[in-house]
C-alpha cells in the first residue's frame, strides 16, 4: 500500500502531467497537486529593489505642484510621462508595467511606509524584512521565514525559499526551521560528478551549531537532488531581456515550470541608492525591472501557470522629496509597492502622497506595509498574519477572494 502510493506519486511527479496540470481532468489534477508541497501550489515571488527606490519618479504625481517645485533637475518632462489619470503617471521606462496595468495584471499600492521612518538602509530594510521595530529582532527571523515556518514542509526536499542571486539569503527568509537556498543559476545546485556531499549523521531538532550544520547538509543534498530533476525536465524557450533581473526571474520560471515545490522565491535588484546623477541610473533600473517582470509573467501565462504566481515588489524606503545638489536624492520615507499576477485587483490603490504636505521634508505614508503583508499572508500564503506581523493590521483589498 505504502509502496504503491509512493510509486504513484513519483510517477505523477516525473510525468509531464504536472506542467499541464490546469488542463488535465479535475480528479487527476487534484491528485497531481497533492504531490505539491503547498496545498494549492501557490507561489510568491518577491523582488527587492535594493538601496531605496525613488518612488516619486516611479509613480509620479505629475499634477502635484510640489513635483515641479522640489524636482527641478530630476523632473521627468510632461510629454514623456505615461499618464494613468489626471494626477498620476508612470516613469517612461515602465512601459511594460503600464501594459500589465492595462491588461489587469498589475496593482500599484501608493505611499507604503511605516510610522517613524528610519533612514538607515540596514535598519529600514530590517524593518521591512522582519516586520519588527526592535533592533534586537532584526537579525532573528523574517516575515516570510515566520510564515514558512507555519506552512507544511515542502515535499521532495525542496527548500521553502530560494534567493536567486549570489548573495546571502536575507533575513526576510530566515525562520526557525524553514530552509533557504541562495543560487545564481541552476548550475549552482548541482553536485559535480565524482564529488559527494557530506556524509552526515541524522539531524535532530536541537539548536546547537553541529545539529544545525547537519540539517543544513541534509537540506543541501535534497536540494541538489531536486535540481538535477529540474535541469533534465526544463526547456526554457521564453524571450527575456538580457539583464540581471530578467536572468534571475527566468531561473525562477524554470523552477516553477518544472513544478519545483518551493513556495517563495526572492530576487534582488540592486543599485537604487541614487545619491548622485540619478536620472540615467534610475531609468535604466526601472527599464530592467519592468522588462523582467513583463517577460516573467508572459512566460508563466503561456505555460498556463499564471494563476499560481504572485509577484511583490518593494524597496526599503523612498527618497527625499527635495533633490540634492549632486543630481541625486538622499534617503526618504514612503514609496510605492507593486503586486503582479492573475490574482490581484488591478490598478492604483491608496492615495498618492502629497508633495507639498510634508513632514521634515519627507512624504507621509498612505498605508502601512504590514497591511499589504497581511493581505498576502492571509489570502495568498494562507497563513495567520497575527503572529507573523506581531499585531493586527487591516489587510488591503489587493487580492481576489
Amino acid at each position: 500500500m505504502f509502496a504503491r502510493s509512493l510509486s504513484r506519486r513519483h510517477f505523477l511527479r516525473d510525468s509531464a502531467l504536472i506542467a499541464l496540470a490546469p488542463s488535465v481532468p479535475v480528479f487527476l489534477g487534484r491528485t497531481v497537486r497533492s504531490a505539491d508541497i503547498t496545498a494549492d501550489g501557490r507561489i510568491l515571488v518577491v523582488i527587492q529593489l535594493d538601496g531605496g527606490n525613488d518612488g516619486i519618479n516611479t509613480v509620479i504625481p505629475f499634477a502635484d505642484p510640489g513635483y515641479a517645485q522640489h524636482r527641478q533637475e530630476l523632473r521627468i518632462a510632461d510629454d514623456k510621462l505615461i499618464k494613468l489619470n489626471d494626477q498620476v503617471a508612470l516613469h517612461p521606462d515602465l512601459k511594460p508595467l503600464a501594459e500589465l496595468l492595462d491588461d489587469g495584471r498589475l496593482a500599484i499600492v501608493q505611499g507604503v511606509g511605516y510610522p517613524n521612518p528610519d533612514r538607515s538602509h540596514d535598519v529600514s530594510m530590517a524593518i521591512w524584512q522582519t516586520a519588527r521595530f526592535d533592533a534586537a529582532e532584526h537579525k532573528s527571523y523574517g516575515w516570510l521565514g515566520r510564515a514558512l515556518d507555519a506552512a507544511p514542509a515542502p515535499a521532495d526536499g525542496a527548500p521553502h525559499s530560494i534567493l536567486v542571486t549570489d548573495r546571502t539569503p536575507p533575513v526576510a527568509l530566515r525562520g526557525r526551521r524553514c530552509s533557504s537556498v541562495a543560487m545564481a543559476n541552476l548550475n549552482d545546485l548541482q553536485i559535480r560528478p565524482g564529488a559527494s556531499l557530506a556524509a552526515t549523521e541524522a539531524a535532530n531538532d536541537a539548536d546547537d551549531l553541529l545539529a544545525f550544520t547537519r540539517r543544513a547538509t541534509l537540506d543541501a543534498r535534497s536540494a541538489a537532488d531536486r535540481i538535477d530533476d529540474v535541469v533534465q525536465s526544463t526547456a526554457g524557450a521564453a524571450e527575456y531581456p538580457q539583464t540581471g533581473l530578467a536572468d534571475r526571474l527566468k531561473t525562477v520560471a524554470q523552477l516553477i515550470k518544472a513544478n519545483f515545490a518551493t513556495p517563495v522565491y526572492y530576487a534582488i535588484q540592486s543599485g537604487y541608492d541614487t545619491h548622485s546623477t540619478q536620472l540615467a541610473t534610475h531609468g535604466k533600473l526601472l527599464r530592467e525591472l519592468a522588462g523582467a517582470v513583463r517577460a516573467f509573467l508572459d512566460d508563466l501565462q503561456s505555460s498556463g501557470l499564471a494563476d499560481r504566481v504572485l509577484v511583490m515588489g518593494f524597496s526599503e524606503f523612498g527618497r527625499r522629496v527635495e533633490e540634492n545638489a549632486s543630481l541625486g536624492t538622499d534617503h526618504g520615507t514612503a514609496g510605492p509597492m507593486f503586486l503582479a499576477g492573475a490574482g490581484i485587483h488591478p490598478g492604483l490603490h491608496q492615495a498618492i502622497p502629497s508633495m507639498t504636505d510634508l513632514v521634515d521634508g519627507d512624504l507621509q505614508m498612505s498605508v502601512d506595509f504590514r497591511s499589504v503583508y497581511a493581505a498576502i499572508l492571509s489570502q495568498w500564503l494562507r497563513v495567520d498574519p497575527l503572529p507573523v506581523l506581531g499585531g493586527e493590521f487591516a489587510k488591503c483589498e489587493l487580492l481576489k477572494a
Partner: protein
Amino acid sequence: MFTPYSPTAARPWDLRRVVHLHKRAGFAADWNMIQRDLRDGPDVAMERLLAPQTGETGGTPFEELSRVICDAAVESGSINRLKAWWLYRMLLGPDPLGERLTLMWHNHFATSFTKVEDVGLMRRQNDTFRRHARGAFGELLAASLHEPALLVWLDAEANRQEHPNENLAREMMELFSLGVGNYSETDIREAARALTGWTVNRGAFRLQDAMHDAGEKTIFGQTGAWTGDDAVRLLAEHPAVSGRIAFRICELLLGEGVATESMLAMLAAGLHEHDLSIGWAVATVLRSEEFFADANIGTRVTGPVEFVIGAARALELTAPPPSTLRLAEVTARLGQDLFAPPNVFGWTGGRAWLTSRNLISRANFTHDLIEGKLHPRWTAFDAAAFAAAHGFTTAPERAAFFAQLLLGRSDLPAPLLHLVDDLNRLVAAILASPEAQLA
C-alpha cells in the same frame, strides 16, 4: 574573565587545542606545525601567531615577491588577480593572523570593487588594513576614512557645502565606529557638513577647501567649526567605539554564544584603557581560558576563505600551490567574493554561510582540490603518500591521522568510516563533513 590560559588536566595543551588555535587565529596548521606547537607549549605557539617574524622592513623574499605579484595585478586592471594575490598571501605568507585581521577589517569597512572599479585603490585600502591590523583603532579608522576607495564607495565627492550628502557620515557612525543607537540623525547631518570637501583626486585623498562648510557644527553635543578630521577624532573618542571593536574581535575569535554581555563590556573597557589597541584585545582573547574552553571549540562556522585556505594549508598543497585565481572563484561560489562584499554591512557570516548552495559548493571544492583540478597542472593529491610521509601507513593510523589533522579529534565521524580504504575520497569527505565546517 579573560584569565590567561594555562594547561590543566581538564584543559590540557593537546592536539585538539593546537588545531583549534590555528583554525581560529589563522588558516589551519599543517602536521609539522601541530607537532611543533605541541612540543613548544601554548606561550611559544601563541607568540608565533601574535608577533610573527615577518621581517622588520618588509624586505623578505616573500614580501618582495608579494609586491611584484601585487603590482602586476594592479597593472593588469584585473580585480581577480588582486583576489588571487591576497589568497596567495594567506596561503604562503608568514602572518596568518595578520591576514585574518586584514580580512576582518575588509569586512568591517566593507568596500566593493563593483562600485570603486579601480584595482589600485582596492589594493591601497587593503595595504592600509594590513598595516593597521593590530594597531590603535583610532588610527585605523582615520586612515580608512581617508582611503580613496572608501570615499568613492560612499559618494564622498557628492558631499558639498551647499548640499551635504549623508552617506559617508551615516556609515562611519553606524558601521565603522559606533553602531545604531549611539548617535542621532542630527549628529549625522552635522558630521556630513564637517566632511564636506573630502574628495578623491587622481587616486589620492584631497581636501577641497572651497567645498568645505567652515561653519559651526554640533556633533555629540560638542560645538565647534569642526573639520572632517575633527569629526573622525570625535568618533574615535566616543565611548561606544570600544564596544563595537570588542564585538568585532569576539565575532572573529569566539564561537557562537561564547561572548557574554559582561565579557564584551570587559573587553571594551580594556580597549578603552589601552588606546583602542586591536593587538592588545586580540592577544587578550586568544590567551584566555575562555578561548581554550570546550564551549569555544568547534562552535564557530568557518568562513569560505578560511575554509578554502585552511584545507590547502593543512594538506600542504603549497608547492606548487593550487591556482589562487581558481581559489578566488571558489571562495566567491562559497559566498565570499573578496573585494566584493554584498553591501556596506559586509558578509553576514555565522550560520548564514551554510546555505545549500554554499555547502554544495564546499563539497565540489573539496573534490576538485583533492583531484588536483585547482592546480595549474592538474596534480591530484595522493593521500596515501602524504600520510606515509608523516609516518602513517596502516588504515587505522591513516584514519586517525586525517581526523587529527583536519578535525582535531582522534576518531572519524561514523558516516565516514566506510571510506577508510578509499583515502582520497575519505579526505574530500572529511573536508565536506558537517564537523569540518565548524572550528
